[in-house]
């Protein structure tokens, strides 16, 4: 009853294979020496990684995605941290409504946000500008950041702050020396998660990007749509490696399952 039978284990193996298959395929193809998408078994090389450096198209897009993610994640943290502290610390009228409103972008399809921003930014003449893209990204990633900040703030034992007060700490000292320190892992993870969501976003950005300002996923999308060649696989493999590194960092700082499951 409590053990997995052989059938369950076979199912598990197939499931894990299914999960890993496309990622493994991408990484294998990136090492091919052919000019088309082929497995590297009949000839391997690093030519497509070299190609990434030679044609800076993807590299530019990569750098765009980096600063876009960093700035929008920081902006989103600036907005969500105070709100999260207010929501978790105080009981006030409209508290539930505010937290529901701040999580609401999760309910809106990115394709809808894409067209809404396209129209809105065009009206204001800021479509295709960094400001527009940063604002749009900050909006869609704020719920993720807010959720981690909230769960970190909620997990603080109120008595710990009372203990500091009883020892003579003033409000500001309690905040900087106790509260902030305790929620720091949550804040860091919130920022990283927000960054990742911005970095990975393709649907909405596809509407807002311009040839001179194109995040990496959009650049990859256009290339795949256009003419699929192994340089896409090489770039994607780098992204997979980065994601794995990010996972390790989050796991060290905050605990990966805590990030995925939202609490605890």
């Amino acid at each position, binding site marked *: 009853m409590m053990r997995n039978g052989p059938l369950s284990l076979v199912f598990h193996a197939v499931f894990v294979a299914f999960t890993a298959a496309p990622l493994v395929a991408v990484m294998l193809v990136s090492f091919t020496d052919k000019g088309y998408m082929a497995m590297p078994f009949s000839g391997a090389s690093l030519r497509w990684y070299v190609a990434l450096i030679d044609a800076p198209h993807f590299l530019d897009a990569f750098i765009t995605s980096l600063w876009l993610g960093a700035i929008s994640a920081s902006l989103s943290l600036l907005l969500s941290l105070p709100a999260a502290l207010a929501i978790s610390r105080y009981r006030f009228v409209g508290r539930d409504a505010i937290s529901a409103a701040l999580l609401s972008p999760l309910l809106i399809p990115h394709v809808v946000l894409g067209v809404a921003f396209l129209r809105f930014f065009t009206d204001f003449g800021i479509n295709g500008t960094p400001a527009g893209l940063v604002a749009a990204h900050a909006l869609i990633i704020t719920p993720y950041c807010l959720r981690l900040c909230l769960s970190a703030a909620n997990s603080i*034992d109120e*008595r*710990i702050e*009372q*203990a*500091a*007060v*009883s*020892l*003579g*700490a*003033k409000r500001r*000292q309690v905040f900087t*020396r*106790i509260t902030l*320190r*305790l929620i720091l892992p949550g804040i860091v993870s919130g920022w990283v998660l927000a960054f990742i969501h911005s970095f990975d976003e393709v649907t909405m950005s596809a509407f807002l990007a311009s040839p001179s300002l194109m995040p990496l996923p959009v650049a990859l999308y256009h290339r795949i749509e256009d003419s699929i060649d192994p340089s896409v696989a090489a770039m994607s493999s780098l992204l997979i490696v980065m994601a794995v590194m990010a996972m390790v960092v989050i796991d060290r700082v905050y605990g990966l399952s805590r990030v995925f499951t939202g609490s605890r």
Partner: protein
Amino acid sequence: MTFLELNGLRKHYHSVRAVSEVSLSAERGEFISLLGPSGCGKTTTLQMIAGFVEPSSGSIWLDGQPLTTVKPQNRGLGVVFQSYALFPHMTVAENVGFGLDMRKIREPERGRRVRDVLELVQLEQHRDRLPAQLSGGQQQRVALARALVIAPPLLLLDEPLSNLDAKLRAEMQLELRRIQRSFGTTTVMVTHDQDEAMALSDRIAVMDSGRIVQLGRPQDVYERPATAFVASFLGSTNLICGQLRLSAAGMQLVVSDRVALPCPDSTGRAGETAWFSIRPEKIRLVGDGSGETGHLKGKIVMRVFCGDRWIYELDTDVGRLVLRVQNQGHPADEGRTAGLTWNLGDMISVEGGHA
């Protein structure tokens, strides 16, 4: 001279009364326990002294100064929380030094005071550990050291031992008493554990429904409980209810048509309904029920062995009675009939029981 004085403290949350009326005064150096079941208002009372909860009315005085208007961070009281509330990101020494930092106490005095107090709680060798690396008992002592290092005029303990297992709790009781004595700090402790309250306190305030129902030395409260609630909350007891009647032999308690027990005089007037408490260890078994019968006859329905003593449960004409008897090696068998007797003075008249 009164050192701490609680004067008519009340606290309502909207219409709910957490504390209805608490007045109490403590001498310097005294150890007082607020004892009661959960929801009796003891923790709220402690929180009002600490300043985390603002009283709806009433006042608190410490050493002749009003405390109610002082912000909690300026009260300078030592507080030990039930969950210990240690700062998880700071080492033992940093936790203990926090209050000194807030008082801008610099080295070398800071280091000396941290060292002294850690020595006192015997944690000197763990000073660089994080709270998560300590056992429950060690965390408890860090919490105590952190509260004591600021040399507070008053120490507040909120269920300080409730998270420890039974054996450790017994050890920590002695430890706590030793440390409190050596500092001579006036202490108020909240607890729901009667043994803890009796072992540690100079005086116990038994609380029920937001007020103090009895205040006194542990042995006085135990021996002369004022109400049925106190009698059954502090230790276990047998409660007997009946009507007082004056007979030729003196005052009697009429429990039913068949039973009238002799009871101490001057406990009330004839015709009144009265409640009496008799502690299980004050009742003795006599004879086999045929000859000498004592005050009452009963049938042993159950007996439980507890090592140093036996506990018997008997069916009698006044209901189920519980006895606690020293283990002398010759226990009475279940199913046997026996006589019950006690000294008249051990029948304590108490106020109102739950019929």
